[in-house]
């Protein structure tokens, strides 16, 4: 099988899985308990937090563990705004993941003045347009670091500068679920990450909250995670997450180079097929692990099914979004519509993929596209 859907999830690193198992079967205590093995476990969790913090380039007191990227994003949006008295403006980019977009729509229902910053055709937020939207009463700006569908990379540090200039009170949040480890954490107030996109198991994520940023908890209870995120700490998930981040940190340039090489190779192969359009940024400016291509005259979903039968896993968009034909919100926002949207397929890579897989997959895709085009709407 060729797995080119690593933006949906990744296989768990065996070392990380071992670590999770050990913390389930041997070191299974509740780290909040008072006896000595639990206290030792709490220290392990602190060390894991430090590993994530080092990878982010922040202090460990600024890292809060959550259950997933969605929870991190929801906490960032609702948590910071609950700490604000009154109301004001909230700006998100038009290409955000549903866990930010739907949360923002909910905020709009709650009375916040929510604005969508337009994106360019490549998927990057239009900085000039975003700047225009920032008013002095803007309380939160949320923009993803790497777009999950197109691989577009946003300049979050530049957004932060704009915010400082025009709305000094605004918090800047970035969804780093696709960007974390492939890029440095940008300068911002809040940053969301997820374990399973980085070869850790599902069910663990983290939220960076810059010291001094006011935020209220989203889950209330026993006061774990310094009160920001109650709920028994997911020690197996956290320990595995730390392990996978440790591994990625050690091999970062090698891993990124590998992904980029596979991506470039696949695109080079695919661009030999007639009527193929690249969606998103060019090879060098896009994220190393995401390639989005439209096969004109072919339905992405039909091609996906055909590839699935040949043992190739790809996607037609975010696995988190219910897809209706012509209703891909993110591609619509980028102006990718009609046949180009219908024919869009996303390939996403990890360091485990090889150039050979890119060659094999491209050959099968070429063959399937040729078959399907015979039966296209003429």
């Amino acid at each position, binding site marked *: 099988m060729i797995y080119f859907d690593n933006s949906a999830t990744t296989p768990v690193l065996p070392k990380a899985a071992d670590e999770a198992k050990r913390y389930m079967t041997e070191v299974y205590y509740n780290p909040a308990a008072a006896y000595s093995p639990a206290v030792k476990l709490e220290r392990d969790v602190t060390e894991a937090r430090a590993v994530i913090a080092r990878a982010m380039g922040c202090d460990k007191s600024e890292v809060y563990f959550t259950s997933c990227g969605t929870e991190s994003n929801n906490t960032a949006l609702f948590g910071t705004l609950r700490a604000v008295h009154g109301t004001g403006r909230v700006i998100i980019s038009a290409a955000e993941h549903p866990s930010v977009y739907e949360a923002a729509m909910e905020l709009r229902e709650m009375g916040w003045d929510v604005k969508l910053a337009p994106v360019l055709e490549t998927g990057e937020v239009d900085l000039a347009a975003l700047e225009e939207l920032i008013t002095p009463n803007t309380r939160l700006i949320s923009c993803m670091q790497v777009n999950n569908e197109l691989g577009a990379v946003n300049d979050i540090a530049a957004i932060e500068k704009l915010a400082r200039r025009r709305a000094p009170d605004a918090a800047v949040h970035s969804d780093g679920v696709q960007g974390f480890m492939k890029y440095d954490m940008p300068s911002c107030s809040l940053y969301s990450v997820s374990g399973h996109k980085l070869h850790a198991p599902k069910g663990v994520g983290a939220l960076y909250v810059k010291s001094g940023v006011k935020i209220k908890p989203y889950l209330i209870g026993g006061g774990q995670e310094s009160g920001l995120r109650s709920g028994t700490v997911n020690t197996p998930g956290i320990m595995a997450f730390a392990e996978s981040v440790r591994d990625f940190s050690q091999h970062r340039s090698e891993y990124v180079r590998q992904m980029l090489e596979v991506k470039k190779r696949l695109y080079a192969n695919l661009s030999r097929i007639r009527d193929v359009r690249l969606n998103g940024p060019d090879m060098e400016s896009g994220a190393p692990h995401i390639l989005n291509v439209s096969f004109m005259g072919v339905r992405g979903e039909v091609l996906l*099914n055909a590839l699935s*039968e040949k043992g190739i896993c790809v996607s037609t968009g975010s696995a988190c979004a219910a897809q*209706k*034909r012509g209703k891909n919100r993110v591609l619509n926002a980028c102006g990718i519509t009609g046949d180009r949207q219908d024919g869009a397929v996303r390939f996403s890579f990890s360091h485990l993929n090889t150039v050979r897989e890119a060659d094999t997959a491209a050959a099968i895709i070429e063959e399937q596209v040729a078959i399907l085009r015979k*039966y296209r709407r*003429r």
Partner: protein
Amino acid sequence: MEKVLLVRYTEIHLKGLNRPYFERALVDNMKRALHEFSPRIEREHGRIYVRNIAEEHMDEAADRLTRVFGIHSLSHAVAVDKDWETVVSAAAELMEKRLEGVSSATFKVLARRSDKHYFMNSDEINRELGGRMLEKFPQLSVDVHKPEIKLSVEVRDMAYIYCDEIPGSAGMPTGTAGKATLLISGGIDSPVAGYMMAKRGLTLSAVHFYSYPYTSERARDKVVELTQLVSRYAGEVRLYLVPFTEIQMTIYEKCPEKETTVLMRRLMMRIAERFARQEGALALITGESLGQVASQTLEALVCTNDAVTLPVFRPLIGFDKDEIMDVARRIGTYETSILPYEDCCTVFVPKHPVTKPKLDDLRTSEALVDWTEMIERAVEKTELMTIK
């Protein structure tokens, strides 16, 4: 005090000498719907009584019965001894529950008496019991025309007392009208069509065409799920899953593009008819609605009909899409139907299908290919699932 479900049935009473046959079929269907609860079902004087169901299963049992065709309505009733004071106190207990949290309400008593030896007639029961209720519940007042609460008392072998009527699905008992085969896609219309014909007493089998590998496994699961939802009303459905890709691709390669959809429909009907005959079904059912899409114009339907000799039932033929969607929502198939997967009818679609196909042209186009072997292969690779 015994709790029973009192069931009223529909037009079965019109069926003259066949009536016992329809009643028996209804009772059998009710038994099947309730089999886990081991009910005792009794028929008497135009009513069916469901007894012996544990209290915690009563609501579920009632809910299931609302999906059994042939039932007009049902009520949660209590059955008590006919002793007058016992009747009054049981009625008061029911009324007390019914009035919980209600500050004022209008009511009337509706008595029926099949035990003609009872010491009061229906009018006397109405007056007496009404009076006792008014004494006990000051928040009640009588309204004989539009009461909010109808307190019903039926005096038979025992006295049956109830307040509310739950509407049933009406129709005729499934199985009393024979068997037909439904062509089911993954859309909104065909499950509704199947439901409507099952409502007239038909037993169903179903045929689904899929375009492996171009349609996904989720699309297939969706059809299984839809069939399962229909079977909640229609009883067991045997579902034939027919691989259709080879035939579709051949149509596209060899036949005029604008006729592909109608040709596809003709071949689907042929294959469905084969399975229908195998099942002993005497008709085909489709979800077509006149003019909804190019393959559902009158001319196109004439061409589709021409491919088979069994009668084709199209219960939705005069329905607007909105009306179909309303039924789909009511019977619970809508949410599944709108799941967005490609199906065999959307994978290969001509851009400009012919809307007024001519039968002679289609016959000529179809004759360009010998379909026999391909149909055999599709039939051979068909998978059969029994959905309950």
